[in-house]
């Protein structure tokens, strides 16, 4: 029945003179998301609205699913298109539409809200409201009119053809990716970091990512899992550059020279430093982590202070105040959870102390790090130079 979608957007509407930039980005991402859906689609902007129109048969469920991954979309209204503009035909089709969407059995109130951008059409919006309302009442006796507080708002727009819609499916909200700069995501194989990436991308930020690989302590499959997670995030965030850093030698150096209970903190400080190098390469304006206060020893307030101290860019931590269960719920919603819990987690547990520090003191950590002074420079250089960069996108 439906042949088009009206795309509603929220925050973009208030962006003043930059509005067209946001709209362009939104159209771009809608086109991108629909590439993986069976069907031919045309995305158009007309008078402050975005329409997606399908040419011929298409995968309706798939199209909705894809549109739900486009940040910036507040709502998706499936639209019936009436090509034959003959007034009697329009009335009959509108009544039939209401009959199909709101079948007999559940009485509802409604009102018709007609607009007539096509001024050549011989009936104005007042007439349309009255006549179409009457047609619905005649065709569907279980429907009643309530112009103040209706259950159903039946929107009718007269353009080159007549558009009819009444439902709005919620979209993901947020802003179109690319409209707010870019940031570098520290992506692990866990549950949190993909969610963190999703949340920042939702605010319109383009994402690139860094993964720290430690062969032979982490397996090739663990790496593949991270690539798969990046692809899942890319379904929302668009193309992601994923930098796979070989971190083994740095980890071993820390293991050999620094106090074992400080290992994780020191390791994370080097991860941040390396992430900043790639952030600069990618033109990113911030770092993103999946940290949440107190979740593990390296995420206590003291630990975060120590990790943060090496960063010059702002660090976005969208999950900072989330409980684990809340993060898990989000991961399930966005579809990364099942991949995150695959059992190829880092077997680099040998690098985790049995009793890591939970209240590290910055000065002490810095002093411990000095023990790496004569080796760390070349190791960092080597890690950056041997990094493998792949580009993933969310298609298929």
């Amino acid at each position: 029945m439906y042949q088009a979608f009206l795309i509603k957007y929220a925050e973009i509407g208030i962006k003043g003179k930059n509005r067209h930039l946001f709209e362009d980005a939104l159209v771009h991402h809608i086109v991108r998301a629909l590439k993986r859906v069976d069907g031919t689609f045309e995305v158009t902007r007309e008078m402050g609205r975005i329409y997606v129109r399908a040419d011929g048969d298409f995968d309706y469920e798939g199209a909705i699913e894809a549109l739900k991954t486009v940040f910036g979309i507040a709502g998706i209204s499936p639209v019936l298109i009436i090509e034959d503009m003959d007034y009697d035909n329009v009335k009959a089709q509108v009544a039939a539409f209401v009959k199909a969407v709101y079948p007999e059995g559940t009485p509802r109130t409604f009102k018709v809200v007609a607009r007539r951008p096509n001024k050549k059409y011989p009936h104005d919006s007042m007439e349309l409201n009255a006549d179409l309302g009457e047609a619905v009442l005649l065709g569907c006796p279980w429907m009643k009119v309530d112009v103040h507080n209706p259950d159903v708002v039946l929107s009718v727009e007269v353009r080159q053809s007549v558009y009819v819609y009444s439902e709005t499916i919620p979209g993901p909200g947020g802003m179109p990716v690319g409209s707010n700069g870019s940031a570098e995501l520290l992506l692990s194989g866990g549950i949190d970091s993909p969610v963190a990436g999703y949340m920042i991308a939702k605010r319109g930020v383009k994402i690139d990512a860094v993964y720290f690989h430690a062969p032979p302590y982490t397996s090739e499959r663990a790496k593949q899992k991270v690539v798969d997670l990046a692809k899942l995030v890319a379904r929302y965030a668009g193309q992601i550059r994923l930098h796979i850093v070989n971190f083994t030698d740095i980890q071993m150096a820390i293991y050999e020279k620094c106090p074992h209970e400080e290992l994780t903190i020191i390791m994370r400080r080097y991860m941040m430093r390396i992430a900043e190098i790639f952030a600069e390469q990618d033109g990113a304006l911030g770092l993103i982590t999946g940290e949440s206060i107190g979740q593990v020893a390296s995420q206590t307030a003291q630990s975060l202070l120590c990790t943060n101290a090496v960063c010059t860019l702002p660090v976005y931590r969208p999950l900072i105040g989330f409980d684990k269960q809340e993060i898990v719920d989000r991961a399930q919603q966005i579809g990364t959870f099942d991949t995150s819990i695959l059992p190829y987690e880092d077997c680099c547990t040998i690098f985790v102390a049995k009793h890591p520090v939970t209240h590290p003191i910055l000065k002490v950590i810095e002093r411990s790090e000095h023990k790496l002074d004569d080796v760390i420079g070349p190791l960092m250089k080597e890690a950056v130079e041997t990094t493998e960069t792949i580009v993933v996108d969310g298609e298929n």
Partner: protein
Amino acid sequence: MEAYLDNSATTRCYEEVADIVRKTMLEDYGNPSSMHQKGVDAEKYIRKSTEILSGILKVKPGEIYFTSGGTESDNWALFGTALANRRRGRRIITTAIEHSAIAAPAAALEAMGYEVVRLPVGRDGVLDIQDLANAMTEDTVLVSVMMVNNEIGAVEPVAEIGEMLRSRYPDTYFHVDAIQSFGKYPICPKRMHIDMLSVSGHKIHGPKGSGFLFIDQRVKINPLIYGGGQQNGMRSGTDNVPGIAGLGTAAARICASLKENAEHMYSLKERLAEGVSDLGNIYINGPSDLRKGAPHILNISFQGIRSEVLLHTLESRGISVSAGSACSSHRRGGSATMEAIHAPREIMESSVRFSFSELTTMEEINYTVQVLHEVVPGLRRFTRK
């Protein structure tokens, strides 16, 4: 250099197997069920393989049924006999160290109301036949015991079990999972009183997706797969001609030189065990007398190094091995076999399986010994403090 030491996971196809698979795909690609000449030509390959296999086992050609591999054969033996004989009894005896192709269907039957007894094994992985005798009852319809354990190479006394069952419980069927032993040991089901025997093609240099189940004609068994009635209605589905032809070809070659092959693999196994002995804190899982275990499996724990870490290190040097059983690496947690032999945690977590074939060379073993000497001391420096 490369060393492929994961032959219990799968083997490289023999050249002549690949040749015949190619031929049956490109030239003699008919469906044996078709009435025209193409079908007749294809059927010849099946007859030939049936003859080869029945000849090796010294059984009737009509007792060989081709399947999609070891897992299907095992499933069929369990479900097929359990369902066909459910009025006689609902009790099945197996062991605690079976491959999941037996363990999982047994658990499924248990959930359906069958009683499943899982016999313990000794520290060397070998079943005590007395435990089986004690567990036997008149209403036990099936005993299923693997001949060679896939993880540690323990060899079970299947001939003795067959004899005991046939003389004391002639109505109980005896199934043997021979997936790791066919092509390594001579097997004569009739003489050993084995009623059903599962074999997989890709473990003996044949194609993946091929295998068979020997079913003695005295066995009452239901089909597992119904359809067009191929293989006397016992196993429907278009005959997998390339797989069956390849399986027969592989079996003919490997069984022509069982003794020489076993001798070759034992010498590899002994060289590897002796070669790593000076690394210290080494523990051999399975029979400590190497010649009592299977010739092609050597399971060693390098204490202080987690299996996966050693596996990936060796991988980076071109050496392929398994951490425990390849099939069980999809699961988290220890292996059923290692638990059944009461391996301590640190032994379990550091166990690596090296498995050979007749194609494995002494150079590969020497290279592996050399690499182990290079990497093990270094890896041991990095243990969890």
